[in-house]
């Protein structure tokens, strides 16, 4: 009953006015995201059945004894029907029990959490570098549409989108680590990840090449959408009115950006999600001990619980990032309908 009320787009206040407050929209969006989150858990659960062979085998090291197999069968309830198994798995996952890594014998959640914090260093660094630069270049391109600055910026963004970032990483290593020797080639500091600090250059320099490598793709994509959105806004009548009123170039840019940015915001959110979730290739190249690196290791060692846990955490954070951006976009842009 209450659920039905919440899912309705508007409701009548006691005064008889149709209202659609923000808090109601927030709750509704969260409710709509829930089925997707459930679907994500189903896919992650299905992974162990995708893996060739008996699921028990994929959960245990090859040297496991017969007793281990029987024990695990009972613990995981593999003898029960699939829906029951799924519910058991989900209920354990919701309290943070993602199982134990086959390789390290430690709880999956702790490992994934540590790795995620390392991934975020790179993702946030790349976002801080790429997003403002992309908006600036995209705006520049939109102002000079069809002219050389636009041509150059557009070409650069296509290059950014087309370049395989795992190759870019290798090229950067060749240039800065092998030839010039100014930056370290891989790893997360001389003492490993535990000593990493953002304030000391001796450690921070390990993050420079990974950040540069990951920043290029979002740079190209956001530049493209900023250019398109800005070009759209700049062709509208009110811009001409602003110019006719005698506003300077800077003020016109400000007005146009205010109109174009909410659209770009959606793309930025998606790109940030990709930065966090799609880090596997760059992290493998730079031996950066983040979630992608963890997943790669899990695949190589066929550590299915680890793979499953990392995938679930990454996908759920991707869903939450998208949800957050969606809400943010509605909050900053009154034109977006709270539908």
């Amino acid at each position, binding site marked *: 009953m209450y659920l039905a009320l919440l899912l309705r787009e508007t409701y009548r206040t006691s005064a008889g006015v149709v209202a659609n407050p923000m808090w109601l929209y927030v709750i509704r969006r969260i409710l709509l995201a829930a089925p997707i989150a459930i679907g994500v858990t189903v896919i992650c659960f299905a992974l162990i059945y995708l893996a060739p062979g008996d699921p028990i085998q994929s959960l245990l090291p090859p040297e496991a004894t017969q007793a281990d197999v029987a024990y695990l069968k009972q613990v995981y309830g593999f003898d029960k029907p699939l829906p029951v198994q799924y519910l058991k798995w989900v209920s354990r996952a919701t309290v943070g029990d993602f199982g134990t890594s086959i390789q390290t014998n430690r709880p999956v959640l702790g490992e994934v959490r540590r790795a995620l914090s390392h991934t975020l260093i790179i993702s946030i660094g790349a976002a801080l570098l790429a997003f403002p630069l992309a908006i600036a270049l995209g705006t520049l391109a939109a102002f000079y549409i069809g002219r050389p600055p636009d041509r150059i910026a557009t070409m650069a963004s*296509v290059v950014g989108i*087309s*370049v*395989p970032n*795992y190759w870019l990483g*290798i090229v950067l290593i060749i240039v800065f680590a092998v*030839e010039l020797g100014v930056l370290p080639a891989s790893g997360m500091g001389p003492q490993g990840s535990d000593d990493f600090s953002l304030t000391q250059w001796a450690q921070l320099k390990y993050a420079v090449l990974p950040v540069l490598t990951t920043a290029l793709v979002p740079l190209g994509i956001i530049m493209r959408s900023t250019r398109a959105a800005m070009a759209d806004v700049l062709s509208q009548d009110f811009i001409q009115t602003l110019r006719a009123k005698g506003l300077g170039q800077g003020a016109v840019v400000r007005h146009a950006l205010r109109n174009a940015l909410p659209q770009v915001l959606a793309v930025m959110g998606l790109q940030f999600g990709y930065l966090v979730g799609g880090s596997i290739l760059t992290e493998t190249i730079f031996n950066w001990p983040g979630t992608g690196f963890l997943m790669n290791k899990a*695949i190589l060692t066929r550590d299915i619980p680890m*793979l499953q846990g990392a995938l679930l955490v990454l996908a759920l954070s*991707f869903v939450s990032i998208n949800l957050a951006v969606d809400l943010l976009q509605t909050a900053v842009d009154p034109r977006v309908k709270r539908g």
Partner: protein
Amino acid sequence: MSLATATPDIIPATAAPRRRGYWRALWHKLRYDYVTLFFLTIIVLIFAAAIFAPLVAPFDPNKTSMVYRLKPIGYRHFFLGTDELGRDMLSRLIYGGRMSLMMGFVPVVIATCVGGFFGVVAGFTGGWVNMLIMRIMDVFYAFPSVLLAVAISGTLGGGVGNGLIALTLVFIPPLCRVAEAATTQIRTRDFVEAARASGASNLSIIFFHILRNIVAPVLVYASSLISVSILLASGLSFLGLGVEPPTADWGLMLSTLRQSIYVQPLICAMPGAAIFIASLSFNLVSDGLRQAMDVRA
């Protein structure tokens, strides 16, 4: 490597039902787009080299040699040098193109058929069928494309076949979305209404009115996925999934040559450059096609 799709207004409001000579008109537009033509030529050349690899390649791509390991560009008769097992780089790059093109095209073609089918069904039927299909697709959208591809082929295990399955699964949802959005827009047009009024069956409406009008947006979108597919496939091989050694594949070559960056940096960068050129060409041709077909994205 994003799969961002634009759903609103894919069909320009002015799009008339198909005129005769649509493809010819398209070619007339493309003829004066020199950037697109240039990169189309590169694609044709890569294709030709891949198809006629046994005739074009100077050496056997799998013939190893202990003596000629990691030789520089232009060393004796090795035009582009040799790799870490003494195999001729040029020949391996030519043969590698076969794998990369296949991995670029096959998943996109299959996904276009499957995703397009579900998209048309969802868009044409509407109601709960639409709801069901599109919500299932939304779940796959909850995974970044790289992550989904790696997770699927990672659990299935390496090999070309599993790589193809993973990539196809990654591309079905976005294509389904594009087809669904286009179909939903076309379905409410007057000419569909008119066809229905004059007694056309659902099937013939789909074939004669819907399909022909959604071809442009779906094709343009699919063409933009080819470069993504090449990048992802090479990425999978790079991680040790997908293509297995000793088969020549650009991603795999990049991965095995990585150990030698201190010895022959230039040679190690070559397979990646090949991936880059192919992906750039497909992207630019797709952009040109989008402009010529007048599809908003």
